[in-house]
């Protein structure tokens, strides 16, 4: 299937940030991604939708090489080209730690470290060897402001991150991901463990964040994809069924399968 990128489709200001090219991925013997291709546009929100087990989280976790942590996982062909480097970030020569320093991640369930709020956010900076107290403090403050959490926690930065509410914890995790100025942030169903109010605040935040970073989000919630993303990709059984501008995917999808999923006839 020939995919039309936002650039080709004439979307205003669309620049490629990354390009998934005919990617194959295996969990042991299980073929989880089958020649998947899709473009990721700079400073845009791209969402991945599809039924459970369709491979959307698997694809997301390729971007920061999370699969490298577990034995038996295999990138079996194709790759993800990162721009402007023009490098395949799945190449065995590329250091996954460097990839993760540039492509950060927010998880499904808030997972603050057993540390203070300050140290949670400073973590990615300390990992990079930053020791200067005042520089750390500045960066932490900026990240917490970026995650719309500063006003709520500025007077209790020494408290444990786990003492915050679920929505605040997730924003803390977003601040943690933001602190090191990543180029892309991956969101793996970031609101599935949150109540509707916390969900709304995270969605609002994601829309604001695209000023600073490129965002790739996996979501089970199609309304969420429609609300916050510029581009949407629909996956099914490890294959990329359709990719396009969000409005087009939701209003007049090209494929019958996509339409069935979106209208709730399937999935």
């Amino acid at each position, binding site marked *: 299937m020939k995919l039309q990128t936002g650039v080709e489709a004439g979307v205003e200001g669309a620049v490629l940030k990354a390009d998934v090219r005919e990617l194959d991925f295996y969990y042991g013997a299980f073929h989880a991604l089958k020649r998947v291709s899709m473009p990721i546009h700079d400073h845009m929100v791209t969402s991945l939708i599809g039924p459970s087990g369709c491979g959307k989280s698997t694809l997301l976790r390729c971007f920061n090489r*999370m699969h490298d*942590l577990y*034995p038996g996982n295999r990138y079996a062909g194709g790759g993800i080209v990162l721009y402007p480097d023009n490098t395949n970030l799945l190449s065995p020569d590329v250091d996954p730690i460097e990839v*993760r320093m540039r492509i950060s991640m927010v998880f499904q369930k808030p997972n*603050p*470290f*057993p540390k203070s709020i300050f140290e949670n956010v400073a973590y990615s900076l300390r*990992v*990079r060897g930053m020791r200067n107290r005042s520089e750390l403090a500045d960066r932490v403050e900026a990240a917490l402001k970026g995650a719309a959490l500063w006003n709520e926690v500025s007077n209790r930065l020494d408290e444990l991150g786990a003492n915050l509410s679920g929505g605040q914890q997730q924003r803390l995790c977003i601040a*943690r991901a933001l602190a090191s100025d990543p180029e892309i942030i991956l969101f793996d169903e970031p609101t599935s463990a949150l109540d509707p109010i916390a969900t709304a605040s995270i969605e609002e935040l994601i829309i604001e964040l695209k000023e600073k970073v490129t965002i790739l989000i996996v979501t089970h919630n199609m309304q969420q994809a429609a609300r916050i993303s510029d581009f949407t990709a629909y996956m099914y059984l490890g294959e990329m069924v359709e990719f396009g501008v969000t409005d087009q995917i939701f209003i007049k999808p090209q494929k019958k399968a996509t339409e069935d999923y979106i209208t709730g006839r399937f999935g």
Partner: protein
Amino acid sequence: MTASTSAPPLSAAVGHGVSDRLSKKASRHVKERIIEALLFSAAAFSVFITLAIVYVLVKESWVFFETVPLSDFLFDTQWTPLFDDAHYGIMVLLSGTLTSSAVALLVAIPLGTIIALYLSEFAGFKVREIAKPFLELLGGVPTIVYGYFALTFLTPILQRIYPDLPGFNLLSAGLVMGIMIIPYVASLSEDAMRAVPMALREGSYAMGATRLQTALWVVTPAATSGIASAYILGISRAVGETMILAVAAGMQPNLTFNPTEPGATITSYIVQVALGDLPHGSIGYQTIFAAGLTLLLMTLAFNLLGYWLRKRYREVY
């Protein structure tokens, strides 16, 4: 009473007793009560034994302290209960216990923690499956074997490095005791580290952390309470260890904190007296109860410390 006009009372509406489809609750009730009673008696039995031990120790120590004032017991610097000029300074035995335990813990805590970190965070599945049983085997070796290992193997080696080392010494016994305790520290610490949820590790890796950074900065703090319990168990084992010290440390009461000297610990003294031919009821014989009570109070203190640490640093995932 307007409600009674619309709804008849329950007793009038439904029959008492049991229908065909709802059997009496009584039979299951009795069975559950019996099971509950059995479980309770099992739990009560262990409490009873503990209390009985405390009772014996306190009662027999009481006899001892009627003759020997507590101040002599605590502050005298000699321990010579069998001499004509008898002295009962527990400090002498305590110094042996503390010195040998310190040596043991200096071996067991760092090595045990490093082994736990390796097995939990670095070793592959196969390495762990092979290494862990061997490690646990180390804890299953009888302590008398460790004692002779210290006396006949380690001490001669140490004497080559340090020729003035006496044949019986606290150092060699302490080092071997440390090796004996490693499995306890390592195994429990590893369990605590492995219980740290994968989500926390993934969070750390996703920030660009290395394995070592993840292990030290995320996994270890998250497992603090479990690691602390492992250390406390290690300390209790060291303080209570008997055979290695009885065999390799000389059993000579000696007020010293120098591990290169021979010494007696509380436990090795108790073995010595209990196996000796002192008449029951003599004041010399009663000393072992006072020494035993001291030991019990020490381990109790460590257990309370461990309990407090567990509560203080309990991680809610």
